[in-house]
């Protein structure tokens, strides 16, 4: 009887184990939702129309997306107009005519593509905007909160250029392209800080066109006019090195604080170490790229949703980088991302 009972238990235990093993193996082969996810991305077509692929942030994004595309078997085509707005319009028109599943776009300004984006949405193509917004809101925007960026940068200058120890209350805004989304929204943030700190004096507001030599020329002229200048804020680290060069040439690197923003490339960190820049508000382009990659997956997974029916926004993280933390992930190199 005892033996019979033992055998029964052993048999039941064995059955239970086998069952459990079966369940476990079933879970391994079919992770919930995985198959439809892979299915929904495979063979899809994504077209990216950037401003120019020569910029560090664009290179980071595309490296991240190409990896994403290779992993899930969708195609990613980059139609680079190389800074030419007319070529950009043609690239957008071409992209719309090809009816891809998704268009990713980095707008040169808020107006140029506004109607084209509406056309794309009307044609049923989903549109993801990165970092530079258009006046037309589409399915998704991934990028900076530019108003916050303006507030952060001018706020940084307010810290240095107000109060009894400030060398003066004079600050400069070296804009980029005045019709660009970053420029327009940063200005809103700047004005908020200027309003809150009425003693701050904006002595110059000139666009450097994202070109370092132009930034250098403006800064050199302004420094002659305002030798007691306290701070300069800009829009792209690769351009503001020119402002830094003018300040260093005048021997005023201890007096003038230079604040800008950037993609977080190692070249920006080098500029901080060389004393050309003081603070970079780093929006970490590889992380931005990952957030956008997640959005690509999201938009491709729901072909049933009408283009433009749901509008989402994702602001990426911003890290304040100065001499103390210009290392590690705050200073990426293209080869790190690959």
């Amino acid at each position, binding site marked *: 009887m005892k033996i019979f009972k033992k055998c029964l238990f052993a048999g039941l235990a064995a059955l239970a184990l086998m069952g459990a093993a079966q369940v476990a193996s079933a879970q391994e082969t079919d992770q919930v939702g995985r198959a439809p996810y892979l299915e929904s991305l495979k063979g899809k077509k994504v077209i990216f129309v950037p401003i*120019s692929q*020569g*910029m*560090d942030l664009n*290179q980071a994004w595309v490296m991240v997306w190409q990896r994403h595309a290779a992993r899930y078997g969708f195609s990613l085509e980059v139609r680079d107009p*190389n*800074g*030419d707005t007319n070529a950009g319009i043609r690239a957008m028109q071409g992209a719309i005519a090809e009816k891809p599943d998704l268009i990713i776009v980095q707008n040169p300004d808020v107006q140029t593509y506004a109607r084209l984006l509406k056309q794309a949405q009307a044609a049923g193509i989903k549109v993801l905007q990165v970092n530079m917004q258009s006046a037309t809101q589409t399915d998704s925007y991934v990028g900076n909160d530019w108003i916050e960026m303006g507030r952060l940068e001018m706020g940084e200058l307010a810290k240095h250029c107000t109060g009894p120890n400030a060398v003066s209350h004079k600050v400069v805004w070296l804009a980029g392209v*005045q019709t660009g989304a970053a420029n327009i929204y940063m200005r809103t943030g700047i004005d908020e800080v200027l309003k809150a700190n009425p003693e701050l004096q904006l*002595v*110059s*507001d*000139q*666009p450097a*066109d*994202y*070109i*370092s*030599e132009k*930034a*250098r*020329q*403006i800064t*050199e*002229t*302004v*420094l*002659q*006019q305002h030798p007691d200048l306290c701070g300069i804020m800009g829009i792209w680290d*690769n351009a503001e*090195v*020119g402002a830094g*060069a003018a300040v*260093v*040439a005048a021997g005023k690197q201890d007096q003038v604080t230079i604040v800008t923003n950037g993609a977080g490339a190692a*070249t920006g960190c*080098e*500029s901080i170490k*060389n004393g*050309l820049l003081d603070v970079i508000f780093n929006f970490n382009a590889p992380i931005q790229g990952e957030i956008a990659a997640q959005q690509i997956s999201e938009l491709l997974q729901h072909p049933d949703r009408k283009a433009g029916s749901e509008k989402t926004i994702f602001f990426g993280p911003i890290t304040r980088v100065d001499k103390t933390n210009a290392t590690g992930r705050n200073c990426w190199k*293209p080869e790190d991302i690959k």
Partner: protein
Amino acid sequence: MPGSGKSDDRRLGFKVSQEVVVVAISVMLFVVFSATLNNFLSQGNIIAILKNVSILGTLAVGMGFVVVGRGIDLTMVAVMVVGVAFSIWISTWGIDFTLAVICGAVLVAAIGLFTGVMVAIAEVPPIFATLAIASSVYGSGRIVFASDVLYAPPNIAWLKFVGNGSVFGIPMSVVIFGAVAALMGLFLRKTRFGRLVYATGDNPNAARTTGLPTRPIIVTQYVISALIAFTAGIIMTGLVTGIDTRLYNSSLIYDVLLVVVLGGIGLSGGQGGVRNVIAGTILVGILTNGMTILNFSYTSQNLIKSVILLSALAIDAIINPRDEQTSQSGDI
């Protein structure tokens, strides 16, 4: 005579050329800005004006040299950015930067040689030849370098000196511009080769029939203008620690051409000289400096700049109406 226009205004006793008009406008602006703007007349600001036009001016000297010979070199900005970017790029392989710059200069001279051969021997009109070559030079660079902005290696002593050094209180960038302009001025006025450039520009067919070596002259012009463009690029790299190849997409090449034409070097060739280039450069420098100090918006700056430049050309057209000779030689 080299360095002067073709028409004389005998009633006034001296020639009111476009150069004189431009100098007059510059003087007028200078007086107005000095009277109304604080610190405009300071030594620092005058040096800043010169420093800010040193690149434009250097490029314009090269362009002027080609235009005098009835050519045009639209490759200058492309050659400048790609030549310097090439030097920086090969220096990242571990090659000494100075050697890399010499390699860049050789590459640039080769591009100039090719352009010259296309214009002089293949006889492609220079405006088309240089437009196409500019685009291919920039395009090739764009493919090879991947990034738009290339930074020179840090701690190159001579490059730092080019950017921040000075001789007798004059910044090196201005010294280099002055040296290039002076050499070119002497070359055009004092050497036989310089006179041949005028002869070729004034009437290429006559020059050739007389037995002048017009083809080698034209080829040499493009090689020299390419090397001058490279020099401007080195000044820029010294000033801002790197080179931005996107400058090719900017209006810089037109600004260079504008300085040349504004100063009074006619596109029909054979007239004008370095003095005209300097006159044009200084007008643009004073204007930009004053408007930056006044903090004019970008749009109004462009508007004012173009109105003043247009009026300089208009005044010249009234004072020096086109005569039989200028009509026959024709512009580009």
